[in-house]
Each structure stands twice: as C-alpha cells, then as structure tokens.
C-alpha cells in the first residue's frame, strides 16, 4: 500500500521524470506541497508523451486546415470529409519503448490504442497499417523483436477484425536498442455523427467503460519518455497485456451506445489512462471533474488512488453520459459483457478532485494541468551536412545482374510477404489493393468510392538533410497515393527522434518539421493528426531521425485503381518525372 502523504523528496520528483524547475512550477501553481497522487498526476500530464513540451512550438507551424478537414489535431484522431456525408478518421501513434521491452504485447497494445483512438470518435475501423524499424538483422535481439512485433500486430488486428493492409519494415543498427513500432488506423463514420472529448453540462455522470483496472504499466507513460539505460530490462513488469477480444466487444458496445444518443463526450484511456482522459474532457469543456475511485472496477485488490490514476490497463474508455439514457446505456454494456460504472460527475468549479475511501486524495486546478504544462523552446543547431560521397571511391560493379539480385535480397529491399501474410488483410471484404503495392486501396463500404493509404519515410535522407528528408517523406506519400489513382487528402505523422535536450537532435526535429510543413503547404496536404516520440536513445546514441508520414487519398471509383503489375506483353514502358 502506497500512502498518499509521503514526503516529496528530490529523488521522488526525479523518479517521476520531473525536473527541479518543473516541480517548482507545481509548487507555485498549487501553493503547497502536492500529495503523492497529485505528484503522479502532474508527472503523467507533464511528461513529454502527454504534454508535447519539447515539440508543441514546432507542431504549431504545420498546416492543419483545408476545405475537407472536419477536425484537425487536438482530438483523438483527425477527421476528413470524403463526400456523400461520410468522413474518414485517422491517426498514427508509436509504441516504441514497450515493444522493445516486450515485443508481442508492446506492439499489440500499440495497435489496440490506435484503434481506440479511431472508434472513440464514432468510426468503425476499416484499415490498419504499421511502420516498423528494427536493428541490424544480425544483432542478437533483432530476430526476437521482429517476430514478436509482427505476431503482436497481427494477433491484435486479426482478432479485432480490421484489415492490416500496409506499412513499412526497415533495418538499421541505430535501432538496435530502440525499435520503432508506429501503428496507423483509419475508420469510417457519418460526417454529422462524430464524437468528441469535450465534456458539456454540469453535474452529469462520468462513466467508466470496458475492462477492469489493474496495476498495468504504472509509470508507463513516464517510461516512454525516459532514455533507456543498461538496466532497462528490469523495468519489465510495467508492460501491459493486450486483449483484442475485449476491444472488439468495446467497439461494438461503443458504436451501439453512440447510436442510442447517450454519449455527450467520450475519450479513450491511453497513456496514464484515467488521469489524461478525465483532465482532457474536463479542461476542454471548461468544467471540473470529481471522481470517486471506490467505484472504479478493479482487477486487483487494494489499489491506491495513485495506482488507479496512473494505471495503463487497456481497453477502457471514459464518457459523459446523458442521465436520461442511463438504463439503456448500461444494458448495452451488460449485453456485451463489459464493465459500466458511474465513477464521478462534472462540476462547475474547474477542479480535478479525486476521492478514495471518502478522502480527497487530489484536488488540483484542472485547466492548469494542461495549460500550464511546461513548454520548451529547446536550443537547436542545424546538423552538419555530410560530405558528398566521392563517386570514384565506389567501384563500378562487374556484373549489373548480379548486383540486382543482391539488391533484391537485401533486408530493406526484399519482399515483405513474410510480414503481411501474418496479417488478415482481406477481412471486411473491401480490400481492392492489398499489401505489396505503392498504396493500399479499400472500397468504401460497398462502393463506388475508394480510399488509399500509405506510410512512408526514408530516415537516411532525414539524417543527411532533415528538411529535405521531411519534404521527401511527404512527397513520397503523395506519389504513392497518386500512383494508385487517388486524390491525396491529408496526412498524419509520427515523429520519432532521439533526445531533444541535445541541440543536434533538436535540429533534426526542427528541420524535419519544417520540411514536412513546406511540402504540405506546397501540396495543400494538411496534417490532421499525429504523434511525437522523443528520447529514442540507448546509452546516449539516438536513432536515425524517423518522421513517419501516413497519408490518405480518395478515389471516386475504386474500379479505377491502378496496380503495379505490368498488364500485358509488348506494351511501352514510360518513365515520367525529372
């Protein structure tokens, strides 16, 4: 049992990933020493993962609007109009550190998280993709990580019932101690039936939905923002286990619930689940939130407020309920065998108040938790451009054919069939172009419209010239979409970098964002959602800068899609472009 009134020592503050000046900021905001639960709440809200404290300034420079954009960054996922009253909702998110520690469950829960982001907004998921980066093929851990990650992604998506139709797999020694698992999901909804996280109305019930809370991943969100050291293997038990079966039930129950008109606001519980979701819902709606943790369905005995507020148990949601529909809503959840518990209410005092056993364990200004989070303008330097290679230092091959065969067999070039055959890419019956092409295409419901999806980035280019690399990633997405006959609509991004406190890494980050922004502005290709993953370092060595871009395009008629295979003998081959 962890008491709530322990003395807050500098060690404890550091363990929570808070810097001394950040702690001072907390003292200034609340005018007293925080309780342990409060410290936990601040650490969850103010870590890099939730607060975007190093990246916010730069993310604001991205173009995020356009005639088709219904909802840009700031919600669970971005929403884009595809005509006929329909919308596509999509986002990409990383689960890098958890996947390195426990590849199967880390990757699985990554997929689970991104699917929830999409169906929380009222969409039925119709496509999943994933961008994966692993260490050198001959590194002793690589094989274990690759097979675990691929099985984990497949295991979750296949069971959940979404076709996994594309992605990327690359290898580089810079990922030896830090694999990247970026999961993308897209869902379809009616454009006038999108659900948001902003709570509305005072005194309304706050409902907990889904699976029970356990001690999973406590401090996972903090872990995800801390550099790995030699002893990272010891942090293992904080890993969460994915349960795609419960998630599938949660999807069906949520969609049924949304159709019933009972949902006023809804938010999934991701990193630092209850804390981030409740604060976000209240703060967005200019409302306070009061939670009675005795009502939270728990899987384990004796959980403290601290543990419940930081638990990362999966397959959970929080919603504000229309009280008139309470019985109806509960019946839906009972039918699907999921927990449904009223655990609190909205208030008008802008406080975030947490009770346990009748005692107040935390009482904080709700807006400040988000708004007053530290924001940094980290110093950065433009990385030094590498010297161009001297062509004469690379001898011409004797035999082009031999080189071609060797190239086709390289880990980064060879067929990815061994990966995507483990993914159900046909379920739902709408896959028009599956994995293996430039972009994947699905039919929209029963047609005739189609949607195209692609994920791209070339980290080598980003390392050589971040700005050009950022541009190139966006441009490649654009080309892949147009190559299948789609009109590019919008993108999501997943910005994976090393330690932003190092000026050269920050320089990579800034350069890539500027490049992405340039390309998006030039192409009218807005950024509607995204995710930032920093501190991807082991023993002080960062990964290659890897700003993965996920892009979506629209086809008026899926039958007009174009595939990469040559169609007949004797036809002309034309090379276009510069």
């Amino acid at each position, binding site marked *: 049992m962890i008491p709530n009134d322990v003395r807050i020592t500098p060690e404890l503050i550091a363990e929570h990933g808070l810097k001394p000046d950040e702690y001072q900021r907390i003292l200034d905001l609340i005018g007293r020493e925080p309780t342990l639960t409060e410290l936990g709440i601040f650490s969850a809200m103010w870590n890099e993962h939730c607060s975007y404290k190093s990246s916010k300034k730069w993310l604001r420079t991205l173009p995020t609007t356009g005639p088709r954009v219904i909802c840009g960054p700031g919600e669970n996922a971005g929403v884009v109009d595809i005509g006929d009253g329909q919308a596509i909702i999509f986002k990409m998110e990383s689960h890098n550190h958890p996947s390195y520690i426990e590849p*199967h469950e880390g990757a699985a829960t990554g997929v689970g998280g991104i699917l929830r982001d999409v169906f929380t907004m009222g969409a039925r998921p119709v496509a999943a993709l994933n961008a994966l980066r692993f260490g050198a093929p001959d590194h002793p851990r690589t094989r274990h990580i690759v097979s675990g990650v691929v099985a984990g992604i497949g295991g979750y998506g296949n069971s959940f019932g979404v076709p996994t139709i594309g992605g990327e797999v690359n290898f580089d020694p810079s990922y030896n101690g830090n694999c990247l698992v970026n999961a993308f999901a897209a869902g379809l909804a009616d454009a006038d039936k999108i659900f948001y996280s902003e709570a509305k109305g005072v005194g309304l019930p706050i409902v907990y939905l889904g*699976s029970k809370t356990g*001690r*999973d991943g406590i401090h996972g969100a903090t872990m995800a923002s801390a550099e790995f050291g030699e002893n990272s293997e010891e942090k293992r*038990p904080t890993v969460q286990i994915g*349960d795609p*079966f419960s998630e599938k039930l949660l999807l069906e129950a949520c969609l049924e619930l949304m159709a019933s008109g009972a949902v006023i606001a809804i938010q999934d519980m991701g990193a630092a689940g209850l804390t981030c979701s409740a604060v976000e819902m209240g703060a967005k709606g200019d409302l306070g939130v009061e939670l009675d943790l005795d009502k939270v369905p728990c*899987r384990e005995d004796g959980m403290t407020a601290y543990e419940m507020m930081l638990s990362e148990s999966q397959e959970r949601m929080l919603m504000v309920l229309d009280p008139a529909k309470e019985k109806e809503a509960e019946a839906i959840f009972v039918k699907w065998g999921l927990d449904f518990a009223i655990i609190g209410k909205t208030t008008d005092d802008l406080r975030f108040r947490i009770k346990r056993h009748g005692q107040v364990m935390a009482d904080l200004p709700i807006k400040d938790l988000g708004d007053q989070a530290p924001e940094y303008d980290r110093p950065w330097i433009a990385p030094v451009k590498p010297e161009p290679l001297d062509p004469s230092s690379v001898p011409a091959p004797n035999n082009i054919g031999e080189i071609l065969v060797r190239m086709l067999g390289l880990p980064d070039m060879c067929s990815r069939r061994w990966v995507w055959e483990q993914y159900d890419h046909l379920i739902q019956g709408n896959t028009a172009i599956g994995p293996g092409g430039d972009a994947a295409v699905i039919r929209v419901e029963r047609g005739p419209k189609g949607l195209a999806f692609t994920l791209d980035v070339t980290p080598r280019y980003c390392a050589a010239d971040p700005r050009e690399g950022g541009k190139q990633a966006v441009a490649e997405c654009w080309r892949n979409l147009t190559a299948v006959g789609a009109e590019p609509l919008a993108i999501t991004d997943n910005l994976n970098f090393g330690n932003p406190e190092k000026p050269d890494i920050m320089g990579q980050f800034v350069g890539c964002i500027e490049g992405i922004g340039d390309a998006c502005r030039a192409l009218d290709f807005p950024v509607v959602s995204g995710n930032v993953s920093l501190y991807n370092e082991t023993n002080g060595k960062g990964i290659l800068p890897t700003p993965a871009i996920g892009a979506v395009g629209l086809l008026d008629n899926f039958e007009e899609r174009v595939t990469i295979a040559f169609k007949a003998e004797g036809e002309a081959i034309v090379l276009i472009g510069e």
Partner: protein
Amino acid sequence: MKARIKVTLKNGVLDPQGKAIEGALGSLGFSGVESVRQGKYIEVELAETDRKKAEAAIDEMCKKLLANTVIENYAIELDEK
C-alpha cells in the same frame, strides 16, 4: 530424464484467457468459481541422466525460450524415467 514445467503469469498480469474461461464456467452454471488463471504445461524428455545437469539445462531453456520472463514465472519438476 523427464521435466515437467509449469509456466504461469506473474501476479497482477492481465490474463484475458483466464477471464474468458471464468465467464464461460459461470454461464455453464458452475457457481462459486472465484478466479481462473491459465498457464502452460510443458513436458521435455531429456537424454541427460545426471539430475543436476538436467536441472540446469531445463532452467536455461525456460529462461531462453519456454517462459517469457517479462510476464511469466516457471516451476520445474524432474522425474527419473
């Protein structure tokens, strides 16, 4: 020598399988089931006849492959054949 290995989930680790079995037992009408946890049971036949050596080998196998020590515990029993 025959080794019997039980691999179980660590305490507190979510066990979706156990939870589903628990629910199924309930709907089959079994009452009073308080919890179900599912693990693995593995039998390995070894050529090794020295008990000590066999034990060490099996322990190594558990660590390297049979158990996922991130989330699982294991227990070994050895039988002479």
